[in-house]
């Protein structure tokens, strides 16, 4: 087992973050990483730091909006929420991903 982390493609991470935020409540960065870990059944565990460039990029593009608030344990944290444009982007990227995955699956099936 090598030590090299499983690096997610930039676009894929964006998709996961958008999806996570689409589930409703605003979340902070750690919360998003926890949720992704849960939803992927612990496959995607390392390189949590890669989340932050993604979050800032999404914020810069206007797909998420952010504001500072108090966390569960009353610490200051930055909370992200999905914007309307972000919701549209999520739909587009999900469709794209599914088409891509389907194509790869087809190729892998042929012997």
């Amino acid at each position, binding site marked *: 087992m090598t030590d090299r*982390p499983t690096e997610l493609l930039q676009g894929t991470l964006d998709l996961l973050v958008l999806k996570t935020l689409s589930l409703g409540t605003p979340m*902070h*960065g*750690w919360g998003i*990483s*926890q949720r992704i870990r849960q939803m992927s059944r612990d496959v995607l*565990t*390392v*390189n*949590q*730091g*890669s989340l*932050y*460039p*993604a*979050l*800032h*990029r999404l*914020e*810069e*593009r*206007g797909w998420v909006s952010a504001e*500072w608030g108090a*966390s569960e344990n009353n*610490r*200051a*944290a*930055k909370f992200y929420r999905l914007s309307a*444009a972000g919701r549209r982007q999520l739909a587009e990227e999900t469709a794209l991903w599914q088409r891509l995955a389907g194509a790869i699956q087809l190729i892998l099936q042929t012997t």
Partner: protein
Amino acid sequence: MRWLHRFGHRLRALWRGGRLDRELDAELQFHLEMEAAANERAGMTPADARGAALHAFGGVARWRDEARDSRGVAPLEELARDVRFGLRSLRKAPGYTAAAVATLALGIGATTAIYGAVDRVLLEPLPFPAAERIVAVRQRNAQGSALVAPANFLDLRERATAFEQLGAFIYFSHDFQSPEGPESIESRLVTEGFLRVFGVGAQLGRVLGPEDFVDAQRRVIVLSDGVWRERFGADPAIVGRAVTLDLAPWTVVGVMPPGYERLVGGRLWAPLVEDDDFRRERAGAYLTVAARLRPGITVEAAAAELGAIARVLAAEHPRTNADVELVVTPLKEQLLGGARPALLVLLGAVACLFAIACANVANLLLARTLRRERELAIRAALGAGRWRVIRQLAVESALLAGLGAVAGLAVAFWGVRLIRTLGPADLPRLDELAVDTRLVGVAVLASALAAVVAATVPALRLLRHDVGDALKAGARTVASGRATRAARAALAGGQVALAVLLLVGAGLLGRSLRALLDQERGYRTDGVATMSVQAWQHYPTRARRAEYVRLAVEQLRTLPGALAAGATSSLPLAGPIGADDATYSREGDASGEAARAHAVAVAGDYFDVLGIPLRRGRRFDRTDDAAGPGVVIVNEALARRAWPGEDPVGKRMRVAFAAAPVVREVVGVVGDVRHEGLDREPTPTVFVPHAQAATGAMIFTVRTAGDAASLVKQMREALFALTPSMPVADEATLEGLLDDSLRERRFQLSVLGAFAIVALLLAAVGTYGVISQATGERTREIGVRMALGARQRDVVALVMRQGGGMAAVGAALGLLGAAAATRGMRSMLFGVGPLDPPTLAAGAAVVLAAAAAACWLPARRAARIDPTDALRTD
């Protein structure tokens, strides 16, 4: 709309960069703490929990930087950081920085100064309204005169339709009694339309109008701004006042704006009254004509019309106009066109210099990049990315260029001053040359170009090179790849080529100057002092003028140190002060066949003063006065033309010199004189005794064994003693006049020579740098060779061969370039052709010698290499 949001985000990020950084840090800190807390809940110790959290996070610094990058403000922050870093690294290598900045300063400064001169003289339009419509009209015949005969001018005025305004002037002077003594002010007698041709109105009063030309007795005058200020104290009420000029009252009707006199000529303008003599004069051409074209008429159309009119006039007046053409030239062309070839050559030369400077800086940058390659490779590996490193390089290059531009402006400032003082005096716009905003812009542009060029080669190298190679263990210095070596050699070779080109150009100019000076002039210039008078006013009759000149020459003979004294109506190297051409026909010729000749009235020992030898016959003496028979002395050129193979002494000819033809007997033949200029052939000339053609415009000449300049003052005083109220003008020595006539050539030679020397130095330095570097890289190879038995001699030969080969190729290219480029210099050369072999050979030889000298040091260093040390070197 999205872009607006993004733009706003970037702006905010830029504005509050610091605060956003702190927020990001807090955000990441929060994440780590939450993760650590979760780990503790899962049972880890606090230390392990923290460690695991960090591990799961991945490199904090890396993700933080990337998060900041994705904020979108990074480019600006990075630029600031690059600039700071660039400045620091330039400071750390002061020698290299100084060399690069100095080279750039020279290149940029010289380019800016020369470009400024070219632009001002050639490109900028004359400061008159619709200046492109102003033309000069000249009369041309077989002899090539430029002035127009009055009758022809009047016919033009009547018949030509191409012109909106047409005017003419003759050179004149007005005597003015200033508190310091009498003085002669250069002026112009103008026809009615002349001042209107330029479309400039007076700053006070008005220009001359039709009413001023009606009555010959009404003396009205227009002042120039200079005269108004210097002689009349800028009196605001001067219009309408009478001033005393030429011992008579003249009414001032207007004052022209500043700068007008410099371009139009003359410092006073008075009406030229067209009397009967004027209207009839078709043989003597003494008018300078200018005109303004009608809107929509091209120069070619006007030329065509004038050609037709000239042909009609030739048919109407075959005796005078048979071979007369009327030509039209745009005024700008007329005034400045002669300077074009020289200025373009200078522009080309400075472009070469600029290229050499850029090549030098590129080489410097490349050498530095190679030395820092390891450091740059590490930066690239740490995530800076290749483009980032190149951007760093570009910033450094831009900083160098910026410093070079600032220093270059200082050089340009100085260079402009030099051009103004040394430059040819008769380029009318040159004295306006100054470092203005436009030139500053040129300097900035030049430095930007230099930065781009200089950074390109190292950048290309970085792009192609795999940075991993640089980090190979054990490599202390990076060996340059073949492409880099080739690039460096090409740069240095290019410098050599350009240096050869400039040297050849300067050499050709130098030889031309030498050839001119060595030319048989026909007269001596050492120890001769001269000054002119216009005696018409003070000695109104012929008899009185003849007597005055005779007396004046007598007086001048008695001056201490004077060896000979004389007077002439036309002096070589000096401009004309009065009529100086005549027509003549030999006894027995049909009356229609008058030929033209240069005509001079002489008095005293004029021929001796100028050292003009007498070939046959005798000089003039006392018997050749107004009462005696008409006599004439001719020069060899005229003798050859009029009486080939015969002895002219004793022959008779009819000479019309500013008067009706007079029969004269040839009493002597003198040697030819290059009167028009050192590079012109001698023209056939007739000399007439002043007593028999008593013109009032004479130049007194005195020869002394000592210093001519000190004689000038005494001459002036002697002439003032004779006629206290008559001013003298054109005080000069013949040596001074000679220098002035060569001034333009000397200027071109100095500038081109200076460029050539700088280019030579830069090329030598460039060669030294390249060979030095190359030899350093071959240390190991040389060590091996020496270990295998090569002697010091062989190593030296090895290095010299490498350098020599590069320089030889460069020199060959330079010679080829010179062969192509010097063609454009043809009009500037005298006595040498553009492909003069000795000059080409000498240019190449000098540069090769310099390159050889530059290779010598590295060669000797290489020869002293200790083989064992060398083999241990990486």
